[in-house]
């Protein structure tokens, strides 16, 4: 019954975006999530740690994460997500907001 934890990495051989200072974004409301996004030197890869009350969406998380990494060019980063049943639309929205903020900093 414990929270479902999912860890995976998305490779990125040629990152175009790197992160500065780590930061936090979002609220764990129903259908929403929070994330901490920080830089982590790991051969270009972006690692994800997701804590979620719902199971059975592992592939979906990976697909969204993969699309985000491809789209953004982000590399060498670690992203922790506390999820409360966010839809992929919301996940992607928050990831993009995080990236926009990271690059604005």
């Amino acid at each position, binding site marked *: 019954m414990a929270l479902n934890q999912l860890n995976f990495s998305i490779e990125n051989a040629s990152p175009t975006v790197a992160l500065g200072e780590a930061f936090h974004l979002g609220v764990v409301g129903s259908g929403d999530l929070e994330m901490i996004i920080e830089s982590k030197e790991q051969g270009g890869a972006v690692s994800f740690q997701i804590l979620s009350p719902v199971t059975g969406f592992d592939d*979906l998380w990976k697909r969204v994460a993969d699309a985000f990494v491809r789209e953004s060019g982000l590399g060498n980063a670690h992203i922790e997500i506390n999820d409360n049943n966010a*839809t*992929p*639309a919301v996940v992607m*929205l928050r990831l993009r907001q995080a990236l*926009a903020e990271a690059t604005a900093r």
Partner: protein
Amino acid sequence: MLQTKVNRSWENAKQDTAQRMEAASRFIGNGKQVKHEDTVALLEAVIRPYDIVNIEGNNQKQADFLAECLNKVDRGKIHDLHMVQSAVPLKAHLDLFENGIAKKLDFAFGGPQAGRVAEFIRDGKLELGAIHTYLELFGRYFLDLTPKVSLICAYKADRKGNLYTGFNTEDTPTIVEATKFRQGIVIAQVNEIVDELPRVDIPADWIDAVIESPRPFFLEPLFTRDPALVTDTQILLGMMCLKGIYGPYGVKRLNHGIGFLSTAIELMLPTYGEELGLKGKICTHMILNPHPTMIPAIESGWVETIHCFGGELGMDEYVASRPDIFFTGPDGTLRSNRAFAQTAGHYALDMFIGGTLQIDKYGNSSTATANRVAGFGGAPNMGCDAKGRRHVTESWLKCGQELPNREAIQGDMPRGRRLVVQGVETFGEGRAPVFVDKLDAWKLAENANLDLPPVMIYGDDLTHIVTEEGIAYLSRCPDLESRMAAIRGVAGYTEIGLQAKPEETKRLREAGIIMTPEDLGIDRSRANRSLLAAKNMQDLVTWSGGLYNPPARFRNW
């Protein structure tokens, strides 16, 4: 020349009605008034087994007292009725079938009773005629499904029996006209009987009995959306709609569905719409219930006219104060009319935009689930291309001209086309995918023995799909295969979306058949609630200058 002249009475229906009214006469007093305690006896006097009976009720006002009384009749005397009615949202409507008083149902919308409709069909308690659209059913009232007895509702009657249906006139004129002019019987429940009506909506000589109901009829604030509940994703979709569809097509004449995407759009007209310079160029003429969330757009001068299917609780004073915009009577208050609004909706709109629970790979969409026979009310009439339309508007023509291979199909004859837009997130509640291989409507058809899977909007009528991934301009697709590719391209991470090939999607983007927010020049980080002209119910009241009076359950002060 062979000629046969039948030898018959030509007044059977009239005589039958007269007999029934004779049986009922002891309950009917001056001004056609019947005491509410006598209602059941009255119904027993005028209704016969196998009659076609209408109980007025749409998704808003309901002849609820009469519906409950019909459930109390002696089922030995009255049984096997054939109910023809717009909607069956009340428990009492389905109890009639449970109680054996009614047998057959022709309707348009199920609402909260949709689950029982499916169950009763399966159990043989209810024989389904068909699930119609409103217009289709209204049409049949004048063709082959004319009610013998109609149980209607109105706000007020006067001492002669004239009725005031006012703000929520809705279906009443249609039902009464069909019934009364085919010699049927019309019984009205009213909230009160007064000396003088604000205006006469239904003349007394079309009415047979008037009952002052022990309590006012039930009215549901179905079109009130609390701005506080609009999400960032809905705002993103709304921005895409405005910038990618409303603007470029110049959509002036349209209907909005009741989902929160429409709410977001309505609330962004005075902000984002203004910024895009669209004022006066879009949303000038609407067929719409008096959505409270339209108030900011109306107040900032976007709208020229709105004609309403029905009323909306709390909007009466506001609407009455804006007679330039709304259709109001000589008494100064709104007159709604579902049949006329639906006629405009079917023939005269440039665009219908709504949401759905599921879209299949071909673009067919439905809100049906496996065990609920809900029907779609008016959506299919508006969510289709009306082939009979002959007048031209710019956006209609533009949409029709987009078909790249139109000459190969239609020759050189210019044709227009209604914009039919579905706005959805790729995943709904509980991460249920909206894009599916096969609609649940197929399962429902199987479970409830329906001849057709209930499809709300057929894929070939759909011109645009808007998701968080982008807009699919299906109107620009030459064939089914390219439509399916466009659908896949905006279906995100659903199984359907995963079948999209990146190369193909790229090609579609280049061809302008798919546009992402980035392609449209939309900054996703702006998709937040600061774009809403009103953020909560009180903001709407403020915009209305205190004229809007929200129902209690929507108040946050």
